[in-house]
């Protein structure tokens, strides 16, 4: 009996021994914890890198023209069609930029970076980069939603639910102040494996853009002039080649969002542009409208409605601004080994199938052989190019009515690179005629680069350009070699757009957000 008791005590002792605290202390095995970070340069750099990972989405930039008079999304389910015709836009729309993921990553970095024992210069530079990224996020959101909650530190859940929308003017002021402050912290250029980080020039250029959009023309002229005078940037000689993988990080790129074919988590699918019929397939998600087609000048610098321009409606793409065919795949054109034929009922691109316009984008995908898979490419998407800065400078000066040679030469630089003649100065001598010119120039130069909607918004031309019928290509017959024979004067009619100026200049705040955030209000009209 005694020996049995001994066994029992021994067992109890074993059980008791396993009652150590350690048994229940289980730390994460595959994730860092807040306490094990900020030990040195590696941690801090990685934390700054993460802020870049979410800050912009290149595919979104490409899609963005569907929300303007440049484009039309044929598929209701992709969510962009309603952003184009606006009449269907409901607060449940899924295509949204109403999120704080990147902003929070920036805030987290900025709140913690001072813990890391690292070189002050590096720390300052990275702070500058991250503050820029945050400012960029706020720029985009204030454009789309108007008033937007300005959150600059990490929030508790209660604080997050209490957040209200900061007036747009305050958000803009924040952006401008931040950019002003980070400029001295940022270098003018980076070398090699740092290429693509935020530069001084990027901060000046974004500042110029935000100032222009907010009618701070004098400031915008100064900011853009700073970029022009920096000596860092120059237009890339070839417009078509500018958007090519092999020419990434060229002298014209001030800021881009970077992708890498060999990193499966960092690829970008640009099949959204390509026609459906091509080998490998495309989505045709960004259809180009006739309206954009018509805004390209003739190669002689005259607009197509000018009787002396030489425009031939039966050869509409001949002798036009070379950028037209560099930007758009037109009916009968060759692309990736096929003849694009939206008029053939047996083609996947047959225009009535989903009310395609019959025009799809060519920019970004022209050199298709650069990509092994259009769905997973490594193409960087430019966000700010030097050409935009030149046009910003010119527009700011025009709006200031300070029309001097610098204005013409800025515009000419862009036009000459495209293969157009210089501006016909006598024809464009007044502020209003120049305004018309600069707006047209911006539209064609920057087509499919995500800026057109903002231009419509600030020029308040929605009722004019996003109202009424949307047309596509003219009805024709196309043979196997791509010869087009027009069989009708009619163009494909795609949809009727109705623009309500009292609400449509802003997107609705998503309904879920209003459901959760007690103090959030909806934009007028939604």
């Amino acid at each position, binding site marked *: 009996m005694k020996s*049995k008791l001994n066994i*029992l005590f021994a*067992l*109890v002792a074993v*059980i*008791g021994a*396993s*009652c150590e605290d350690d048994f*229940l202390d*289980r730390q*994460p*095995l*595959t994730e*860092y*914890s*807040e306490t094990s970070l900020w030990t040195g340069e590696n*941690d801090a750099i990685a*934390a700054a890198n*993460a802020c870049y*990972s*979410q800050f912009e989405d290149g595919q979104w930039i490409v899609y963005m023209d569907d929300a303007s008079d440049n484009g039309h999304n044929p598929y*209701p389910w992709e969510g962009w069609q309603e952003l184009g015709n606006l009449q*269907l836009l*409901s*607060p*449940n729309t899924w295509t949204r930029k109403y999120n704080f993921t990147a*902003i*929070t*990553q920036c*805030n987290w970095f900025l709140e913690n970076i001072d813990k890391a024992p690292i070189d002050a210069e590096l720390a300052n530079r990275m702070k500058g980069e991250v503050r820029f990224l945050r400012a960029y996020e706020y720029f985009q959101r204030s454009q789309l939603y108007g008033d937007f*909650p300005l*959150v600059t530190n990490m929030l508790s*859940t209660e604080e*997050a639910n209490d957040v209200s929308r900061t007036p747009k003017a305050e958000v803009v002021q924040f952006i401008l102040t931040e950019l002003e402050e980070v400029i001295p912290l940022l270098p003018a250029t980076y070398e*090699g494996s*740092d*290429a693509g980080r935020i530069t001084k020039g990027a901060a000046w250029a974004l500042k110029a853009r935000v100032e222009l959009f907010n009618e701070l023309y004098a400031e915008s002229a100064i900011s853009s002039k700073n970029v022009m005078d920096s000596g860092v940037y120059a237009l890339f000689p070839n417009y078509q080649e500018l958007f090519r993988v092999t020419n990434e990080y060229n002298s014209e790129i001030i800021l881009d969002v970077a992708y890498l074919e*060999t*990193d*499966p*988590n*960092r690829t970008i699918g640009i099949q959204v542009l390509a026609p*459906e019929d091509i*080998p490998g*397939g495309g*989505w045709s998600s960004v259809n180009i409208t006739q309206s954009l087609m018509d805004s390209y000048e003739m190669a002689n610098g005259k607009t197509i409605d000018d009787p002396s321009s030489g425009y031939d409606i039966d050869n509409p793409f001949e002798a036009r601004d070379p950028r037209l065919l560099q930007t758009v795949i037109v009916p009968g054109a060759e692309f990736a080994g096929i003849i694009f034929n939206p008029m053939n009922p*047996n083609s*996947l691109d047959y225009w*009535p199938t*989903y009310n395609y316009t019959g025009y799809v984008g060519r920019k970004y995908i022209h050199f298709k052989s650069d990509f*092994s898979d259009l769905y997973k490419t490594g193409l960087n998407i430019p966000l700010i190019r030097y050409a935009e800065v030149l046009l910003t400078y010119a527009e700011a000066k025009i709006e200031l009515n300070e029309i001097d040679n610098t204005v013409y030469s800025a515009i000419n630089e862009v036009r000459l690179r495209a293969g157009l003649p210089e501006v016909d100065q006598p024809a464009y001598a007044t502020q209003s005629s120049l305004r018309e010119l600069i707006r047209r120039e911006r539209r064609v130069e920057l087509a499919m680069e995500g800026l057109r909607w903002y231009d419509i918004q600030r020029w308040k031309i929605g009722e004019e350009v996003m109202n009424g019928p949307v047309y596509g290509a003219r009805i024709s017959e196309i043979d196997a070699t791509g010869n087009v024979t027009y069989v009708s004067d009619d163009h494909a*009619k795609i*949809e*009727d757009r109705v623009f309500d100026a009292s609400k449509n200049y802003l997107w609705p705040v998503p309904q879920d*957000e209003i*459901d*959760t*955030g007690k103090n959030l209000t909806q934009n007028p*009209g*939604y």
Partner: protein
Amino acid sequence: MFRHNLLSGYAKRGNILKCMSVFIFLFATINLSANPAIEQQSPIEGTVSDATGEPLPGVSVIVKGTTTGTITDFNGFYTLDNVMPDATLVFSYIGTVTRELQVEAQTTIDLTMEEDVFGLDEVVVAVGYGTQKKINLTGSLSNISSENLESVPITNISSALQGTMAGVTVTVNTGQPGRDQGLIRVRGIGTLSNSDAMVLIDGIVSSMNDINPNDVESITVLKDAASSSIYGSRAANGVILVKTKQGKSGDLVAHFKMNGGGQSRIASPDFIDSWQSSTLYNEALVNEGKLPRYTPEEIQKFRDGSEPEQYPNTDFYKLFWKGNGLQQDYSFDVSGGSEKVQSYLSMGYLSQDGLVQGSGLDRYTERAKVDFQLNSHIELNANISYSQELFKEPVANIHNQDFAQLVGTLNQTGRVVPNTINGYYGYSDEGNPIAVLKGGSNHADKTHHLSTIFQADAELLKNLHFKPLIGYTTTILESKTRINDQQYYNPYSGEPTVFQGPNRVSDSNSFTDNLTIQALLQYDTTFGQHALSILGGYSQEHNKDNYLFGSRYGYLNNALNQLDAGPIIGQQNSGYSSEYALQSVFGRINYSFQEKYLLEFVVRNDGSSRFAKENRWAIFPSASAGWRISQESFFEPLKNIFSNLKLRGSWGMLGNQNIGTYPYQATIATGQNYTFGGQSVDGIAPIQGVNPDIKWESTTITDIGLDADLLNGRITFTGDYFIRNTSKILLPLPVANSFGLGVPVINAGSVENKGLELSAGYHFNQGDLSFDINSNISFIKNEITSLAGAGPFPNQSTILSVGLPVNALYGLVSDGLFQSQADIDGHASQDGLGGPVGPGDIKYRDINGDNVIDSEDRQYLGTSFPKTTYGFNFSVGYKGFDALMFFQGASGLKSYVSGRILGSLYDKNGLPTSIWLDRWSTDNVDASFPRVWNSYSQNDPSSNPSSFWVRDASYLRLKNMQIGYTLPDKVISSIGIKNARIFYSGKNLLTFTKFYKWVDPEAPAGDSAYTYPMVKVNSIGLHLTF
């Protein structure tokens, strides 16, 4: 509040106290054991046999008025120590008349048991860490034994439980082989996160999918807090105890069972012909001011099929679901043994072919159980099982590259798309489901599950049992997904067009192991008319998961499926590892007086690695009492009617810690990469919000129950009323997006479930005729009682709100359809809902009266969790024939259709169902469906969830029907077979419901177009006993 402080105060004192409690408990138990051990009495032994003189093993021999007793061995032999001369021994055995004998001066008592059909007194059921006689239970539990499971063609146990127990709701959402397990909810939805019940197989935490249904001896569901609080922190959602069969001493007995049959679809989406869908597509375009897509001539061609390639009416559904659906199940077991060694060996093979080619399941199971009676004091037991499951399914080669995507593609490829044209596959935006299916992209899982349980039972002192246990389970999952590329061609020129690719092979391995160490001390004693039973225990569990993934793409062709054969460029790998640990001490005291007044106290102290140190430990107590009124002397006159009548009551507290592995720790995720200068750089960032203060969820259950057996067990009845309150629910309460991280889990909210459970049975057996009727019904009312002052939280078609049930549907209220422009003009504005309003659009009710229909006008539209669930079966046997019908149903639930299961008009990507035909038009103003739409969303159930799409999803289902015949002995005995039965069995044969006829009412609410359809099964089988 008071309780909360008490607990946290306790927890702060920390581990020392907790560990001490183990010692204290064990010492206390040992001390208690000392006293009765002194009263040495003479031993009694004997042999029990049945009416034919054969020794009867397994007879319970109990000293009356106590819980002391034993069970006869395989020779029918028993021995009992320390029996007082004035004691009475009670001999009982299922199916025999219970006998009571005075001991007096005897040392040997032999006995012959007489047969009795209704020997319900001795029914023993599994309870936490032991067993108990059903009549002595004070808690609420439901029990099902193997006979009720055996002859059904079941592929997994969880779905077989459907409708068999009051208070246990089982939902089966899919008929896919290997994925058709039931979702089990015990007494409603107790929490807002994971409501899965805890499953223990032979005492080890496990999953119901790991086991061969033939190995199951019984399944017990612990429903109230009194019976489940011994499992403390994991018991809040109910505990399911699965007990496997074991060997009995005696002759070897072998069973061979087989059944085979075919599966078929219960319901198919009722997609309409291409001429109808193209007509509707035109109509939708015109409704939206667009040009029609098809000319009348083209529609005529669709209709007459004159140009089937260009103008097809492709029934992709029919082409897709072409698997043979064969199902076969074999099992063999042998058991038996000697006095010293008993064993049970079994093996099983299940094969299920899906309704689509490439889908299927093969399962091999093996189990070996051995019991050693080392000596009169020590028993050893080994229980080893292994199963291997081979699951396979075809997958899509685009988007998610899974089976759901493939079914999604199927459900959106319009009939206007040809399957083949000039020998080439036709093509819609997502490809061609048949081409993808034939392309052979597939996913396969091979799951190995090993479970080894070793336990001992040592009687250290008289009536003091020490029961250590070591249980080790491991699950190895090998997954392989092989995505084949697919080239489409222009059917006219033969030129390659769309390419779906590149091909890809992904391999993953996950390894989970779990080690449980447990020790129990049990002491049973009686003094006078008092019986006392004490259980103390310690258990700890450590669980670790490891996962490794690798993939490559761009293989030369689709021939190879090994990683090594693929190009290195673009290869990917990833992995993770996580672990958790639990540590617990627990105790239970059962006391009974005269077997009339029953009391039980349970307490468990649990520690979990999932919580921060300060919140790590918590106590879960319970108490229950029972009064067997039928034992009272005043009840004597009624005794011939009521053989048993018992009133029960219980209260207790339970926990839930099912919330991920490290929820209180702020973790920083890696992999937030970017690219600089053409090179990838690593990024780290927090992505998930954390709450370091989270604590256990706590559930209290109060239960009042009544058990009655009438007419010597012919009629049985059990009723329970319960109130189950769950508070401090661990919940990711919706947070405004400005929080910027994944929503953290916090202790917010309370849910109350109130319910009534009734079950009754009638059993008749006379001569050659026997029949049984069993029925059960549960009513449940579920309500969120608090959301920590926050909310309500609408989320598309559902809402979380105080005062509403957990699965509350939410949306606009429909008042029919607009009939005219005047109707529209006179109504509140609906302009903000996604399109210009026209006649034939749904008219939504202006709830808040502000003359605008918007999100403010949404309201509660019903719950998708059934308020009432029920089941009843009727079985009859006459001579060798037997038949059974089992119905199961649910009512008081709503569901709705949306998305692809409703269909859409997107031409190639749209596949409208027949309800679109009854659309509103000027010729059809009484329509049941609005005017058709293409891109407008005001009527669309996904964009604007509304009561228009919500329907009563109550159903009644003939779950199982069986007809069997047992061959006469004289036919089979000559060939050495003891028993042979052949049978037909059908599963899910009939469904009665008012829900959309092509959607199964059990399918998940909303868009169920991505799931495998529910199946019915017709099979025949054979059971042989040797």
